[in-house]
């Protein structure tokens, strides 16, 4: 889901940078109010977890690869705004150091994976785990559902961003200037892969992590954060 340079035209790249500015500003303002100094190590662990989970590429035999994002977990534990900051840092390092995701696409990639994914995941988790005791199985299920839905909404959105490019930018002869695949190809491809495979990876890692924390550190689980 790391959109590289050259797949999005300047209008889309610019739009998402502009869209992320108020989100990053709000994130730092809100995290400043809510994050306690003793939670900083967990935030760093959340960012590290997301980074390393994204390195576990899962193959579709003979086809493409993909991976989980691991970002819903940080959102559940520390709130979606803190998760937004943690995932943003991971994505920026991946783009700058490893060329994973484009420089021009940092705005769009952060919008999909550092904003939409943790927010959708967080609210799904809250809804499904509503009123469940800390040690309830429903919290594990809620985490899995949240991971699955969070990554799939983000992947669909990435598909839309890819798919709009041939409509927005093409030569007089009809050749695409950026991503050549339209909505009818890009959205089913991105959504399909994540619905069938990568979404389940996100669901399983998120659910297992919550199950582990229920046993080892239930004090980390309360629905704190904003």
């Amino acid at each position, binding site marked *: 889901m790391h959109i590289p340079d050259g797949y999005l035209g300047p209008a889309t790249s610019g739009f998402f940078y502009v869209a992320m500015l108020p989100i990053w500003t709000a994130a730092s303002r809100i995290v400043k109010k809510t994050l306690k100094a003793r939670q900083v190590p967990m935030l760093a662990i959340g960012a590290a*977890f997301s980074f390393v989970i994204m390195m576990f590429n899962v193959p579709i035999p003979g086809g493409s690869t993909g991976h989980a994002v691991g970002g819903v977990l940080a959102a559940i534990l520390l709130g979606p705004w803190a998760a937004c900051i943690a995932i943003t840092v991971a994505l920026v390092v991946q783009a700058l150091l490893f060329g994973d995701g484009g420089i021009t696409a940092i705005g769009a990639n952060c919008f999909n994976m550092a904003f939409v994914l943790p927010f959708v995941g967080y609210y799904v988790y809250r809804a499904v785990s509503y009123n469940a005791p800390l040690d309830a199985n429903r919290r594990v299920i809620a985490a899995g559902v949240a991971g699955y839905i969070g990554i799939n909404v983000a992947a669909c959105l990435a598909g839309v961003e890819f798919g709009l490019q041939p409509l927005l930018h093409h030569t007089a002869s009809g050749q695409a200037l950026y991503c050549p695949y339209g909505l009818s190809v890009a959205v089913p491809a991105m959504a399909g892969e994540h619905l069938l495979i990568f979404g389940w990876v996100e669901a399983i890692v998120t659910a297992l992590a919550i199950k582990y924390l229920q046993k080892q550190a239930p004090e980390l689980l309360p629905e704190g954060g904003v």
Partner: protein
Amino acid sequence: MKITTKLWVGIAVLILLSPIGLIIPEHFKAGSAWGEWGADEMQKLVGYIPQGLEKLSSLWNAPMPDYAFKGWEEKGLPYLSAAYIISAILGIGLTVLIVFLVGKILAKKGE
């Protein structure tokens, strides 16, 4: 052991296992992620390289492209796996450092 210590150990184990994310796709002959093809792959897929894509795709010269060292592409999986682990250590180390700095600036002290 403190829970954060346990979780850091977990991250370290995941880093050491990360080459699985390189080896298994290779084994199943799985290619790039959807929408993350290089310019030459694009030529094969649609028969041309979109002009804007060609121009922008080489915009940034990452120091360790694709979590490997430059020039190691043909070195084989053991080398690439080692480079993958080193990439994970450097990338995660830098990410953690930045998050700690940002967290220190933002977080409320003494709580």
